[in-house]
C-alpha cells in the first residue's frame, strides 16, 4: 500500500493534540510552536498531495489517494478516504487556514492548552469531512466538528458567547438530524454507504420519494452554507467567536455546506437537483441581494463581515444550482476564494479590535495613520471581496457568472444571474464605506500609540494576500484541478 497521505494530513493535528496533552505543564510558547509546526506540516503535505494529483484526462472522475479499510462490517461501513478535484481544493484551503488560524491565535492567554487542543481537533474534523467517501465516516466527522466549536465559542468568545454557541449547535444539530434521516433512508434502500457507488445507483426506489431524501440532506447543508432564512446563527456565531474561530468558521465551515450540496445532493440525485434548481437559484439571488442589503446597515465591524459572507455564499448556491460545468467550477473556486478573503478580513478585524478595543464603526476612524500595514492589507482584502480583477474574488465570481449565464439547465437563469451581478455594486458600497469609516479621515487622538501589526501578524496576513493574488492572477492553478472533479457530475446531469 502506498503512503497514506490523506490519513496523515487529517491526523497530523491530532498528533499535536496528543503531544500537547501529554507534556507536563508546557509553556504557552511551546504549545503554540507545536501547533504551528504540525498544522504547517499538514499544509505542506496537502501541497504535496496537490502536486502529485494526477491531472491527465484519464484521471477524470477518479478518486485519488484512496484508502479503504473495513471499519464496521455489520453495517458495511468502511474507513474510506479519497480526494478528487472538488475536495482537494477544499483540503488545501483547510490546511492553509488551519495553519494561519494558529498564527492568528498567537496572543491567546486564557487556557492556551485547551484552546489549541480544540482548535486542532476542529481542523482534523474538517479535513475528515472533505476526505470521507463513506457516509457514516462523513457523518461522524461532520458531528465531531460541533464539539470544539461549542467550547471555542462559549469559553474564548466575546459578547453573548453562550447564546451564540448554543444557537450554533442547535441549528447544526437540527440539520444533522435530518441529514442522518436521509443517510439512513439511503442505507436501508441501497445497503451501501459508499458515496462513490451511490452515484451509480440512481434507478432505485426508496421509502420516501427521492425529493424527500434530497431535501433532508439539503437542509443540513443549507444551514451550514447558509441559505436564507436559515442564516441567523451565522452573524451571532461569527461575531462572538474568537478571531481564529471566525476565520475557520467563515473560511472553511461554511464550505461544508457547499461541498455537501455538490457531493451528495447533486451527485446522488441529479434529476431532483434539476427539478428543484429554479427554486434554489431564486433563493441564491435572495441570499446575494438581501445579504448585501443587510450588510450595508451593520454598525459592528465584525458583524458586517459576517453578513457579507451570506451574500457571497449566495454566489456559491447560484453556481451550484445553475448546474453547468463552468458554474460548478466557479462555485467551487468561489468557496476557496471566499475562504481566503473572508478569513483574511476576520483576521484583520481581530487585529483592529485587539489593538484599538473598538469594533463600532461610529467610533472608529482615521486608523490608516496609526496602523498603516493593517490598513493596506485590509484594503486589499476588501477589494478582493468586492471582486476586483486580479484578485481571487474576481476570478471566482466571473467564472461563476459566465457559467450561470450560459447554463441551459435552469429556466430564466440569465435574469437571475444579472440580478446576482447587481450584488457586486452593493458590495462595493459597503466595503468602501467600511474602509472609509475605519481607516480614513483625520486620525483620532484616542487611538494614538495603537501599534501596527507585529511580525507574526504580518506573516499571517501577507500569506493570505499572497494566496488571494496568486489565485486571482492565475486561477488555472485551481480550476485545472477542480474541473476534473466537476466533469463527471455534469455528465450525470446530462444523462
Amino acid at each position, binding site marked *: 500500500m502506498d503512503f497514506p497521505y490523506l490519513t496523515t494530513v487529517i491526523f497530523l493535528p491530532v498528533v499535536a493534540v496528543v503531544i500537547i496533552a501529554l507534556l507536563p505543564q508546557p509553556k504557552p510558547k511551546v504549545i503554540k510552536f507545536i501547533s504551528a509546526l504540525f498544522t504547517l506540516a499538514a499544509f505542506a503535505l496537502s501541497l504535496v498531495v496537490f502536486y502529485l494529483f494526477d491531472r491527465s484526462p484519464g484521471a477524470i472522475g477518479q478518486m485519488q489517494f484512496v484508502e479503504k479499510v473495513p471499519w464496521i462490517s455489520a453495517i458495511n461501513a468502511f474507513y474510506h478516504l479519497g480526494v478528487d478535484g472538488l475536495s482537494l481544493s477544499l483540503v488545501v484551503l483547510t490546511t492553509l487556514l488551519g495553519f494561519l488560524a494558529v498564527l492568528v491565535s498567537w496572543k491567546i492567554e486564557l487556557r492556551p492548552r485547551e484552546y489549541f487542543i480544540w482548535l486542532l481537533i476542529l481542523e482534523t474534523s474538517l479535513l475528515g469531512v472533505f476526505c470521507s467517501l463513506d457516509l457514516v465516516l462523513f457523518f461522524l466527522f461532520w458531528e465531531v466538528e460541533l464539539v470544539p466549536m461549542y467550547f471555542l465559542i462559549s469559553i474564548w468568545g466575546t459578547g453573548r458567547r453562550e447564546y451564540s454557541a448554543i444557537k450554533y449547535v442547535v441549528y447544526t444539530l437540527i440539520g444533522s438530524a435530518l441529514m442522518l434521516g436521509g443517510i439512513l433512508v439511503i442505507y436501508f434502500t441501497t445497503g451501501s454507504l459508499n458515496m462513490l457507488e451511490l452515484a451509480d445507483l440512481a434507478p432505485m426506489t426508496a421509502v420516501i420519494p427521492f425529493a424527500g431524501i434530497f431535501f433532508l440532506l439539503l437542509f443540513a447543508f443549507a444551514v451550514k452554507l447558509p441559505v436564507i432564512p436559515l442564516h441567523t446563527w451565522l452573524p451571532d456565531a461569527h461575531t462572538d467567536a474568537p478571531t481564529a474561530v471566525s476565520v475557520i468558521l467563515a473560511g472553511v465551515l461554511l464550505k461544508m455546506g457547499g461541498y455537501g450540496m455538490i457531493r451528495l445532493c447533486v451527485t446522488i440525485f441529479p434529476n431532483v437537483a434539476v427539478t428543484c434548481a429554479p427554486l434554489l437559484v431564486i433563493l441564491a439571488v435572495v441570499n446575494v441581494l438581501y445579504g448585501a442589503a443587510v450588510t450595508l446597515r451593520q454598525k459592528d465591524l465584525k458583524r458586517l463581515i459576517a453578513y457579507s459572507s451570506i451574500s457571497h455564499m449566495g454566489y456559491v448556491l447560484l453556481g451550484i444550482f445553475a448546474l453547468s460545468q463552468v458554474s460548478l467550477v466557479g462555485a467551487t473556486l468561489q468557496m476557496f476564494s471566499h475562504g481566503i478573503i473572508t478569513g483574511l478580513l476576520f483576521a484583520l478585524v481581530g487585529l483592529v479590535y485587539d489593538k484599538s478595543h473598538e469594533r463600532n464603526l461610529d467610533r472608529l476612524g482615521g486608523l490608516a495613520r496609526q496602523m498603516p500595514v493593517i490598513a493596506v492589507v485590509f484594503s486589499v482584502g476588501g477589494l478582493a471581496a468586492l471582486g476586483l480583477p486580479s484578485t481571487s474574488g474576481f476570478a471566482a465570481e466571473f467564472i461563476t457568472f459566465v457559467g450561470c449565464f*450560459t447554463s441551459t439547465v435552469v429556466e430564466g437563469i440569465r435574469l437571475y444571474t444579472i440580478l446576482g451581478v447587481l450584488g457586486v455594486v452593493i458590495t462595493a458600497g459597503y466595503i468602501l464605506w467600511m474602509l472609509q469609516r475605519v481607516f480614513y479621515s483625520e486620525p483620532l487622538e484616542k487611538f494614538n500609540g495603537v501599534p501596527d501589526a507585529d511580525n507574526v501578524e504580518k506573516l499571517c496576513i501577507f500569506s493570505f494576500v499572497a494566496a488571494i493574488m496568486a489565485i486571482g492572477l492565475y486561477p488555472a492553478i485551481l480550476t485545472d484541478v477542480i474541473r476534473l472533479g466537476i466533469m463527471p457530475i455534469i455528465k450525470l446531469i446530462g444523462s
Partner: protein
Amino acid sequence: MPHQVPWLIWLSPMFSFIIISLILRPFFNHHPKLSGYTTIAAIGISCFLSFWVLIEVLKAPGHRLEIPDIQWVVIEDGISIHLGLIVDALTAVMLIVVSVVSLLIQIYSQGYMHGDPGYPRYYAFMSLFTGFMLGLVMADNLVFLFLFWEGVGLCSYLLIGFWFHRPAAANAAKKAFIVTRLGDFGFLAAILFLFYHTGTFDIERLHSLAIAGTLAGTTLTWAALGIFSGAAGKSAQFPLHTWLPDAMEGPTPVSALIHAATMVAAGVFLVARFFPLFEHSKVALTIVAVIGAFTAIFAASMGLVMNDIKRVVAYSTISQLGYMMLGLGVSGVAVGIFHLFNHAFFKALLFLGAGSVNHATGTFDIREMGGLRRVMPWTYITFIIAALSLAGIYPLSGFWSKDEILIYSFKTQPFLFTLALITVFMTAFYIFRVVFVVFGGEYRGTKLAHHSEHKLHESPAVMVIPMVILAFFSAVSGWLNLTGNFGEFLGHGEARGLLEGFFGILGKPLPWLSLIVAGLGIYLAYAMYSTRRISPEAVGRTFVPLYTTLSRKYWFDELYERIFVGKTLVNGLFVGLEAFDTYAVDGSVNGIADKTIATGRALSRVQTGQLQLYGLFIAMGIVAITICFYFFG
C-alpha cells in the same frame, strides 16, 4: 520587433510599482526621491517602446501586428480564456497618448508633490495606473480588458483619496468608484451576454461576427448599450457624470493624467474599440451621439459658474468627452479618437496650469487669484495656448478635431449640431473667464496672508518644462491630420495636400461659423471679467434661478445621494430588510426555540422512567417502520 515589446510596455510600470511598494517604501523610505526616479525611468521605457510599436504598426500591412497569447483559464465544454494583446492603429495612438502624457506628468509631479509625506505612495499608484492604462489599450479580449478597466478604476479611487485624512477626498474616492461601478455593471452584463450569444471573449472575433452579420439585431444593440454603459461610467457621461467634479479632491497631476487625459477617455476608447458593434446597430450609435451631445452642453453649462479652477476644467473635461462620444456617434473612430488625442494634451496642460497656479497661491478659488500673468509668465502663456486650443481657435489642435465633429454632426444630426455649436460658445466663455479672472487684473488673495504678492513666484523648472512641451503639442498635434494621415491610419480619412489641409479649411463656411461663435464667447468673457463693461454680478442677479440651478449642478448630487441612496435605499428599504432579519427571521427562530423548551418541559413528564413503557414505544415505532416499508418499499 520581438513579441515581448508590447508586453513590456505595460509591465514596465508594473515593475516600478512592485519595486516601490516592496523595496523602496519599506527599506529606503528616507530617500523618497528614488520612487519618483524609478517611475519616470519605467514610464520612459514604456514611452520609448510605444514609439517603437507605432513605427512597426505604421509599416505593418493592415496596420496591425500579431502577438501570441497566453492561456489563462480553460474548462472543457465551457470557457477558454486566453490573454493576449491587440496591436493595431488604435492601440498605437493610445499608447503614445498615455505614455507621453504620463511621462510628462510624472516629471511635473516631482515639483508639485515635493515634500509630501506620501511621495513614494503617490509614485507607486501612478506607476500602477500607467501600467493598467497601457494594458487597457492593448487587451485583446473582454476579460483581460475588464481586468485593466477595473484596475484603472482602482487607481483612480486610490489617487482621488490620496489625502485620505480629508473627509471630502475619502468621500469623493468612494463616490467615484461606486458610480463607475454602476456603469461597469452594464459592461459586465454585456460581457456575459456577448459570451452567451457568441461563445467568445475575443474582441476581434466579435468584430468579425458583427461585420458578418451573425451578431445582429436586438442582441447586438443590447450588447453595445451594455458596453456603452461602462463607457459612460468611466467617461462621466450623463447620467453618471456626478463623480468627476468631486474627483478633483485628488492631487492636481492626478486630475491631469487620470481625470483629463487618459482614464476618463478610456470610455471613449472602449466605444472606439468596439466600434464595429456600434456601427451595425443604428440605435446604439444614435444613443451614443445623443448622450454625447447632451453631456457636452449639460456639463459646459455648469462650468460657466464654478469658482474653483479645477472644477471648471473638470466640467470642461466631461463636456469634451461628450464631444468625443458625439464624434464617434456621427462619424466614427477616426474623428472621435482624433479629438481624444488632441484633448489629452491641452486638457492635461490646463490641469498642470491649475496646479502651477495652486502651487503659487495655495488655493483653487479663482476669486482669490488675479494678476498672475506678471509673476507666472510661463504658466500664463502655456495656459493661454491650451485655452485657445480648447476653445477651438485656428490653427491650434482643438480647432481641427472639433471642426471635424461639427462638420459630421451637421451632415447627419442637425439638432445635435446645434447643441454642439452652443457648447462651443460656452466653452470659449468659461475657459476665458478663468483666464481673465486668474491672470488678468490685480492679485486679490486675502485669506492666506503669507501668500502676499511679493512671495508669488513662477513654479520650478521641473514643472514648467513639461508644461512647455505640452503647450507645443497642444498647438500642433492637430496638424497631424492636415494631410488626412491620422484619419487614414485609423481607417477613415481623405488624403489631401499639406497646404490645402492647412488653409483650405478657411474657404468653407462651417469653420468660420464655429470660429465666430467661439470668438463671441471669448469676447463676452473679456467684457465681463476684464473690462467689466458688463457686470457679472448684475448678470447673476438677473438670472437668479438659472444661476442657482447651474451652481447647484441641477441638484443631481442631492437626487442621487440624498434621495435615492440615502432615503430610499440605505435608510429606507435596507432598514426594512434589517428589521425583517432581526425581528421576523431571527425572532421567529428564537420564538420556536422558546416554544420547544416549553414543550420539552411538558414532554419530560412522559419520561416516567418505566422500562415497560419505553419498550411499548419502541415496539410501536418498529411496527410503524415496518408498515412504511410494506407500503412504500
